[in-house]
């Protein structure tokens, strides 16, 4: 292995993430190569210096600490206005949750799921690399997920439809892996999440067929044991049409 190859892996070494089975080899190289050893030392020093410079650089004020401890909202104008729920509602929600209310649990799960889906969609659109496999060909996109997901799914032929496949990537939703596909409908982009439908609210059928969250339309459908969720600012009719195509593609 050349010095360049070792250097590409020095970050893993200084982060204590180097494969143990190769550690001896690397350390042997560092013993005989002063140049690589110096490089490793510089990187390690920079890592430690970064921690010293950036950790606890900003400490919360005592006023903010006490405000959080009291669970009360700020009186200032907030940046995240739509997301705020008043302090009293939070206190009530916590009390209800502590009392073990299934209604609260269901509501919280549903709201969290909707918010997380929208977050994933927005983050994808904001990313410089929105998808990991870029292709309009379903025969390229579907096989890319092989070995990455504990389930399989089918993609419809979109050639004669108003939709275009843009690509896909692996996502984690509700702590489980799933597929996120990106489709275009005119100038709108639609995220399609294909997940295993074994989470509580999916099985109980309480996840809404359609919903609106922060201005985005969300549609949910099921096919066999898969849950298909679509998120977009496109109109609900277009989203529904794509959902139906996806659902039909899962039929044997």
């Amino acid at each position: 292995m050349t010095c360049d190859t070792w250097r590409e892996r020095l970050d893993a070494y200084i982060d204590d993430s180097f494969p143990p089975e190769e550690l001896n080899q690397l350390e042997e190289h560092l013993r005989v190569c002063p140049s690589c050893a110096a490089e490793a030392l510089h990187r390690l020093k920079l890592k430690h210096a970064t921690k010293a410079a950036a950790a606890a650089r900003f400490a919360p004020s005592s006023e903010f600490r006490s405000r959080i401890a009291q669970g009360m909202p700020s009186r200032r104008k907030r940046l995240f206005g739509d997301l705020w729920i008043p302090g009293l509602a939070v206190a009530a929600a916590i009390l209800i949750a502590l009392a073990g209310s299934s209604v609260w649990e269901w509501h919280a799960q549903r709201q969290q799921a909707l918010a997380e889906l929208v977050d994933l969609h927005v983050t994808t659109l904001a990313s410089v690399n929105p998808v990991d496999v870029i292709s309009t060909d379903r025969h390229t996109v579907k096989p890319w997920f092989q070995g990455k997901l504990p389930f399989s799914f089918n993609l419809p032929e979109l050639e004669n439809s108003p939709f275009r496949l843009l690509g896909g990537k692996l996502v984690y939703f509700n702590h489980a892996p799933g597929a996120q596909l990106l489709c275009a409908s005119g100038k709108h982009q639609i995220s399609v999440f294909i997940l295993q439908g074994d989470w509580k609210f999916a099985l109980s059928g309480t996840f809404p067929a359609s919903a609106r969250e922060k201005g985005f339309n969300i549609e949910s459908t099921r096919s066999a044991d898969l849950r298909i969720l679509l998120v977009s600012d496109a109109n609900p009719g277009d989203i529904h049409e794509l959902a139906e195509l996806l659902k039909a593609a899962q039929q044997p």
Partner: protein
Amino acid sequence: MPYFAQLYNFACWLIGDRVAAEDLVQETMLKALRGFSSYQQGTNFRAWIYRILRNTFLTSQTGLKATASLDSEDDALPEPATLETPESILLVRHEQSAIRSALESLPIDFREVILLSDVEEMSYQEISQALGVPMGTVMSRLSRARKAMRGLLTAASEGVKR
């Protein structure tokens, strides 16, 4: 609240404004409370709550602007040309201010991965969960981020020399 001070520090680094960081942390805590029933006991709580904070930031106006202005993954930030390490001079003389300034200059996706790795000392697995990207992406992004950081420090040290 676990990780309260660390979340606030991380939020300040992301958003660059103390007042906005307070709102971001407050919002993160509300979301965490609302969604706590979805948190699976035994999984990584720290990665879970950092992910909530980060997603909240990304969907805020500030976050959207920050990510929209990002360059491509192959950022054209200067890299150190040789093993000569002018940053070592800075580490001694102007270490903290130089590093802070370099961190602030990094694109947001580079800054956050360095903060999670070097400041929060998260494992690659934890960072992967917090950022919602595969481990391979964490490793390559961290490597590019550190190169960019070294490039900025090199450029800063050349400015000091002049």
